[in-house]
């Protein structure tokens, strides 16, 4: 090979990877990138943040009119508007984080191909931006919820406990999707369809009680972590009388299923992303 005295040279550099060996840098970079891009969206157009808020609100407006005036799906549900809006905002967070992550790595080609940095920064920044958005949207939700007569409760402070698993689920998918998209460009349309399915498979328009059989209710709560989280959100944020997640699942034990799904997606996502990370710059 050469006449270099390899023993004195220390450790060879590893090349690009997901974590990059320096977690502080990963964090700094993710936060900085997220803030910059958030700023861009915020100040990018004249109405700036209003648009970010309008999207879920408009969707809410349409769905509210349809499902209270025409279909009457919301009839008899306590605080239906609050339930609907909370569901939409939480789901918007999820779809924002995942849909935007799909093309995230490919979109930042000029960074990925020119600078060495922990590749995980890219999906992580997307997730952070979605969180920023969610926090602002939740302020709007708060105003609305109070306006519709929901009593403030101590349980509201448990909200982070709901947002954490939702974020982990979205983060796992973000890693998986952004890494896959580099190789398979049809991940994008596929994921759009999956998001549609998930939207209707989650108790957003409806509440779980509407489902005809106990088995069906269990299936939804077991195999759709978003549903699990939404059920719990309705219980602890809006309507105490609504069933909580473990009742809906038919027992605390069964919550292990959505828990395992979230964890599994997280591990799978990281594994795939970590495996692809060294070659992303070449494959793009």
């Amino acid at each position, binding site marked *: 090979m*050469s006449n270099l005295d390899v023993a004195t040279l*220390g450790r*060879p550099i590893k090349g690009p990877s997901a974590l990059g060996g320096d977690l502080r840098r990963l964090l700094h970079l993710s936060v*900085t990138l997220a803030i910059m891009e958030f700023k*861009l969206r915020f100040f990018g157009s004249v109405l700036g943040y209003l648009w970010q808020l309008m999207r879920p609100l408009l969707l809410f407006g349409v769905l509210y009119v349809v499902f209270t005036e025409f279909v009457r799906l919301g009839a008899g549900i306590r605080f239906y508007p609050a339930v609907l809006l909370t569901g939409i905002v939480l789901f918007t967070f999820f779809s924002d984080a995942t849909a935007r992550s799909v093309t995230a790595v490919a979109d930042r080609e000029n960074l990925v191909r020119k*600078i060495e940095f922990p590749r995980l920064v890219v999906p992580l920044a997307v997730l952070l931006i979605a969180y920023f958005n969610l926090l602002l949207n939740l302020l709007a939700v708060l105003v609305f919820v109070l306006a519709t007569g929901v009593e403030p409760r101590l349980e509201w402070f448990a909200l982070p406990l709901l947002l954490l698993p939702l974020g982990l689920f979205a983060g796992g998918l973000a890693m998986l999707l952004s890494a896959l998209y580099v190789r398979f460009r049809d991940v994008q349309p596929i994921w759009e369809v999956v998001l549609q399915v998930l939207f209707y498979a989650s108790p957003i328009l409806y509440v779980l009680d509407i489902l005809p059989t106990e088995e069906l209710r269990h299936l939804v709560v077991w195999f759709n972590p978003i549903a699990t989280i939404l059920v719990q959100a309705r219980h602890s944020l809006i309507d105490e009388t609504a069933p909580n997640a473990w009742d809906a699942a038919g027992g605390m034990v069964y919550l292990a299923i959505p828990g395992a799904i979230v964890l599994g997606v997280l591990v799978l996502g990281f594994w795939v992303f970590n495996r692809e990370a060294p070659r992303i*710059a070449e494959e793009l």
Partner: protein
Amino acid sequence: MTESSEGIPAVAIDGVSKSFRIPQERVSTLKERVLHPFKRARYDHFDALHDVSFAVERGEFFGIVGRNGSGKSTLLKCLAGIYRADTGAIYVNGRVSTFIELGVGFNPDLAARDNVRLNGVMLGLSPREARDRYDRVIEFAELREFEELKLKNYSSGMQVRLAFSVMVQVDADILLIDEVLAVGDVAFQQKCFDVFNRLRDEGKTILFVTHDMSAVKRFCHRAALLDRGEVVRIGEPDDVAATYVELSFAAGSEGPVEDRVEGGGDGTAALLDAWWEDEHGERQSVVHQGRPCSFHARARFNEAVEHPAIATLFENERHQPLMATSSDWADTRSGTFQAGDEAEFSVHFEMVFAPGRVYASPWVAHQGRRVMDKRPRMTSVVVAGTHVSGGLVDLPHDVKLQAGSRILQGEAGA
């Protein structure tokens, strides 16, 4: 630098190879995969780097040169940690700052201020450090008045200035720079090289990929020449630059680019061949400036003729005549030739023409009046040289600069 790292090369590359897979038919959708599950994707392998090894000492200004596609940018990207080497190992001792291509990772929609901070963090600063150094960056780039402007409204030269400033202010121990400075204006280029010299004196290590041989010769301590992914030459910048020029002209000199111009003459003679030779009498399409060379032309006579002459004119690419000579300047009595006889004409001289392509237009004449055959731009040769002075020829000469004599000044004043 820590004490323990004294004496260790800043960058050591040990047997690094890198190849890229280039799919013959790109299967980039799942649908195609599902429809043709047994069709294996076929790949062409392109060896960008093959068993490259060298070490760069701390404080060295090291040039990496090579033709397009020789693997120098791939090597730099491996050093920067953007690509992972297939085999071999790269040892880097110290913080690396990279400057690869225009406006590294700048976001066109963000203002300069935000881009500088983002870029700083990208290159390894903490957010606080990036904020603190912002003023120095913008001052160095001389872009204070444009700091709130979005990057998309910057000219490419301004972007390069900004990117370069960030890279310099990051305070890295090792700088990797990929031929980008050509974009900036002359004043900024000079400023860059001033900075390089300062950094070099401070003991920073600089690896510099470029096509600009004069920059290599001016600034680099050593250089490496890559060709087809292998190190062809490593050593003194002058030698490496010379080999580079040789290599690039050798590849680009197959046949003259210029279209042949129709010949003239009354057809009583025909110029059959014209060519160039180097000092060893070998036919060449490239000759080196400052070395002996010769031009040759062979003609056949179609009718008997007494004392014919063959002459030639040398021109450069811009049709500027450089020199003309004729055989009857040496001897007007060249003898008698019968129909079918051939004559060879040759001009030996030291190549003093400026680097570039030189065309020869030979002709055969009789008594200085009758043109028997004339072949404008019949052949050409590339003059290889590392230095472009702007003149038509570069004559060997001495040049000197001395301090003026005080006594003389005194006398002049008296």
